[in-house]
């Protein structure tokens, strides 16, 4: 079985997949990628199934050496990836040679990058998932973040020896920036807040604080006032729930959130916008705006279609890769099909309404 040697684990690098659904009734958090959209895009770029595990790499990124030739893709935050010291592009299929070292020069945009490797990261499946929940030492690589000396197993490449290559054209690559508007569905406990409280929440701007992690992203801003107290009889939680405790500050519950909670939740971030929160860094500013469920479902559907359109495996949609000297350097643009073209082909109507697409 091929593997990846960890030369440096970086700030926080963990094995994650789409999460551990089905065990919340036992109190087991779902975990999974904070930016599930970016991880799934990376998996599609290397021909992996959507549920394959990859690496979530935070801020500084790790330093990794590939034991054998591998087909990889890096998505999510732009941490300035390099292979053997040469810059390589995010959001495209890459081939790295045996012995090559992947490192990161420093964050340029966003917070969390994802590495997918054809064949997937092949750690044992725990309760249906390879995701790491570090607080309980559950899943992933020994239940913890990667560190120097770890040897991370990679599954056999199911997508074949001559993979298709795919690159996201520059205008399709998500840019995160430092200010964004996040769409939410109000509730389930929006009625626990005063009209003023709801108004504040939707009018004001909130700044991400350093007290943020994979459990939740804590924001600072004008306090959101309750009219009936901040405590409720504990109920279930979802990814993106915006909890407001007694101090009036919003906390967006994220991948490692507890399965139940006893604070009021004023609203929930729509699925298509979770990537924005996952990629925010402390100091970034967020405004919340309410949409209805129908709009959220349309945006969700568009985001899923966007992912589906990354389809390196589909005959006729992409050309064979042309490697130059077996290097991981970016390939000639002619070897790739743009995502917009793929979408247009798929929809059969030439539609390229990118504004309507739920681009992060």
């Amino acid at each position, binding site marked *: 079985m091929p593997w990846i040697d960890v030369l440096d684990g970086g700030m926080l690098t963990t094995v994650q997949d789409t999460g551990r659904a089905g065990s919340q009734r036992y109190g087991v958090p779902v975990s999974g990628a904070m930016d599930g959209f970016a991880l799934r895009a990376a998996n599609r770029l290397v021909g992996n199934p959507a549920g394959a595990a990859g690496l979530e790499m935070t801020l500084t990124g790790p330093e990794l050496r590939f034991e054998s030739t591998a087909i990889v893709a890096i998505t999510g935050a732009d941490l300035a990836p390099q292979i053997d010291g040469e810059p390589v592009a995010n959001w495209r299929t890459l081939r790295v040679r045996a012995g090559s070292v992947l490192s990161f020069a420093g964050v340029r945009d966003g917070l969390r990058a994802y590495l997918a490797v054809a064949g997937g990261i092949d750690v044992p499946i725990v309760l249906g998932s390879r995701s790491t929940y570090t607080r*309980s030492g559950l899943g992933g690589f020994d239940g913890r973040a990667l560190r120097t000396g770890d040897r991370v197993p990679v599954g056999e490449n199911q997508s074949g020896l001559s993979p298709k290559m795919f690159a996201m054209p520059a205008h399709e690559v998500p840019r995160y920036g430092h200010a964004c508007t996040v769409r939410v*569905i109000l509730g389930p406990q929006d009625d626990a807040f005063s009209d003023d409280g709801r108004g504040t929440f939707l009018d004001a701007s909130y700044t991400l604080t350093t007290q943020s992690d994979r459990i939740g992203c804590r924001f600072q801003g004008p306090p959101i006032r309750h009219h009936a107290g901040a405590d409720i009889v504990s109920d279930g939680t979802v990814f993106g729930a915006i909890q407001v405790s007694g101090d009036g500050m919003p906390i967006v519950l994220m991948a490692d959130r507890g399965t139940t909670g006893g604070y009021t939740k004023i609203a929930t971030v729509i699925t298509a916008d979770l990537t924005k929160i996952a990629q925010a860094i402390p100091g970034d500013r967020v405004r919340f705006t309410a949409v209805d469920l129908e709009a959220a479902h349309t945006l969700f559907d568009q985001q899923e279609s966007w992912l589906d359109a990354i389809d390196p495996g589909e005959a006729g949609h992409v050309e064979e890769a042309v490697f130059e000297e077996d290097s991981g350097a970016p390939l000639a643009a002619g070897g790739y099909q743009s995502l917009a073209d793929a979408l247009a082909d798929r929809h059969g109507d030439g539609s390229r309404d990118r504004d309507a697409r739920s681009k992060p």
Partner: protein
Amino acid sequence: MPAPPRIRPAGDRALVVEYGVAIDPATNRSVRALGCLLDGLAHPGLVETVPTYRSLMVHYDPRRVSLSELRRLIDEAHDRLDSVRLPPAKVVDIPTVYGGAYGPDLADVAAYHGLTPDEVVTIHAGSEYLVYMMGFTPGFPYLGGVSPRISTPRLATPRTLVPAGSVGIAAQQTGIYPTASPGGWRLLGRTPVRLFDLSRTPPVLFEAGDYVRFVPVDADHYGTIQNAVEARTFVPVVRPRE
């Protein structure tokens, strides 16, 4: 037949189905019964149901089930609530050493209520507690029905580290910490039993709807059980509930 639940969106991939706002066994039964019925449908659009004290979180995939169909499935399940036969409840014995280093708050709880520590133990170990739900950390049971005679508020300042197996109370709840974690519950004792163990399927000893009974043991017995737990030869005492 319970009144129809209040259904609220929890984002665009889950609905909260609320049967009330209070903690009581009848409300909790409705929640679990609805979950049982929905799980039984094995509908591809229903991802997961999570029962809590008074509401069921229904996670769904909006690409595989429309909101209107999901609401219809919930309505139909609700109409069948009285007919559902829940899995038979069991009672799991949890051997517990009370007081001393195992239960550092036992003396304070006794003093708070003007009781002796032994009286607190007798009251705490004298009930079978319903597992209303699990949450917080893997395997943590929320047990209701603590006698008002020993009900005690949380610590003003939570401990930064509560040892695994600690048995605590908070107001009218009691619970067991499956793993070492921060916590503010008043600690009465500790059990060597592993509440969450991945070598079991499922990894928990009991689920929402089951009951827990605390059985006082001495420190020697604790050690014997702990050795058996580590040797994986420990078999918990489990009985069907009458």
